[in-house]
């Protein structure tokens, strides 16, 4: 029974991994787009003396959206910051329980945030709020994209939490560690070095 649940969740996790990576990459492309937008804006201001693309407003939205699209990827990389000074001194079993607590805290956090953000979005939509700027962007558009990222994040956290919970139930501490454990220093260093050397 547990075995079946776990293997089902594992299949879902594969999808979550892929989805999170592509959300993050789309966010990354938006960051590159920012470079283009802002460069055009600066050039236009210096050479033509006027603003060309309203980069200030657009990049603000891009910031909100691309950040929210990166949260799930950061989660799958186990890179959301936890203070592990004490954690690393505990035996595996205790660590597994702490990992689950950490995930549940993050799940609660993300669901609370999605709930709050949804009402911001629905208010903007029903009132037809527009930004107080030359572009007058209807705010619900960037807010919907922002909400999408946060919703995906809370979905990803929930799936990982479930998998960690059932993993602990079936006594698979190593699997939980791999999925959700705070990365040990060795892993982090390995990661940094890989980046520095490549």
């Amino acid at each position, binding site marked *: 029974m547990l075995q079946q649940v776990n293997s089902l969740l594992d299949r879902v996790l594969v999808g979550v991994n892929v989805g999170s990576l592509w959300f993050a990459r789309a966010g990354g492309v938006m*960051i590159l787009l920012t470079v283009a937008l802002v460069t055009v804006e600066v050039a236009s201001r210096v050479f033509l003396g006027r603003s060309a693309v309203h*980069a200030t407003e657009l990049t603000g939205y891009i910031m909100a959206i691309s950040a929210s699209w990166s949260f799930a990827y950061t989660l799958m990389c186990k890179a*959301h910051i*936890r203070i592990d000074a*004490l954690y690393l001194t505990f035996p595996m079993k205790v660590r597994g329980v702490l990992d689950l607590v950490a995930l549940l*805290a993050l799940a609660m*956090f993300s669901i609370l945030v999605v709930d709050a953000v949804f009402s911001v979005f629905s208010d903007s939509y029903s009132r037809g709020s527009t930004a107080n700027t030359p572009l007058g962007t209807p705010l619900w558009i960037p807010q919907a994209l922002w909400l999408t990222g946060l919703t995906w994040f809370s979905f990803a956290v929930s799936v990982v939490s479930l998998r960690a919970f059932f993993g602990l139930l079936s006594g698979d501490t190593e699997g939980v560690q791999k999925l959700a454990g705070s990365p040990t*220093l060795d892993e982090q260093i390995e990661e940094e070095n890989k980046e520095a050397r*490549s």
Partner: protein
Amino acid sequence: MIITALLILMVLLLMSVPVAATLIALALLLAELFSPFPLINALGDVLWSASDKYLLIAIPLFILLGEILVRTGIARGTYRSLESWMSWLPGGLLHANIGTATLFSATSGSSVATAATIGTVALPQGKEMGYDPKLFTGSIAAGGTLGIMIPPSINLIVYGFLTETSIPQLFAAGLIPGLLLALMFIVGTALICIWKPSLGGPSISHSWGERFSGLKHLVPVLTLFGIVVGSIYAGVATPTEAASLGVLGALMIAAFMGKLSVSVITQALDGTMKTTGMIMLIIIASYFLNFVLASSGVTRELSAFLENAGLGPYSTLMLVILLYIVLGFFIETLSLMVITIPIVAPIIIALGFDPVWLGILIILLIEMALITPPVGLNLYVVQGVRKDGPFSDVMKGAMPYVGIMFLMAIVLVLFPQVATFLPELLR
């Protein structure tokens, strides 16, 4: 009550609950205890105004700039060139370590990336030439911390965002203390090596021809620094625009060096997004905590409490410095910033200290935290690149530099002009 809240904060953090979740939990608890209004209703709006920020996009842009630089191998050339100019000093290569760190930090904005990059280039050479491993590794770890003081600095942007301080002012303020600290590192290293030559290694001298022909390797780094910092102070660009131009410049340099490919860009973007997610989640959480602290009046109560305790401005400041040093032993640096700044900065600023100056002081203390064990990220990074030898080598080697930083902190408190002189010139 406040004490209870702080205790809960510490317990949650030590249980390794993610910092972002801890900050929101603390914010909600404080709102419940101290505010007559249900501040939780503002959560969505506060988060949106924290996220939809033109200023903040400078953070992923500077991360991307660093990612591209790291992948182009610019560090190697920079190191060789500086080595030919600086290694005649007592301490030889140690000065090249610090010099490269100074130049690199001026473009990448990240301490860890700086330490990792320089470690990869310098360590094999130091080992080959028989340098004492302690001071050699220590100088790399310490040099790497300059990354968050010399502009552009992601940590200064975070401070500016949380305290609503002007980023160009902060960047201007970081320049002189950053360079002064680098100079103090160099003088300190030379003095140590004169006193005990065995701690360093052979000094090497190069011909002038070698030195001048090596200068071309400094061109990429100096160009990027010029683009980023120059465009801000020429009044052409905001920090965000300067960061964009910097990324464009880095892409062009990478293309010119034949290092630009789809896979390099993809890797750089993946790395950027991972770090962005990590930083942004705790920043927006911290922004909400900031909001709750300000609207519920907790900050005012804390200030009043300190005042009634009979602590003058300077004793309070000393207390804060002590707090950072102690917490810096245990808490990772970005978390340390976002947890403490919403509480500490308003109190210290209310006592009459300059917010720009305070930013530089806090950054200096954060730099110290990067190289104090047991949780000193740069120490581990250098040890990780090094692979062999005891970790205690790096720890011991970094100690003199911790001392120099402490000296610098005293200088900053006694002569605030070191930090405030340039920004006032620009004001």
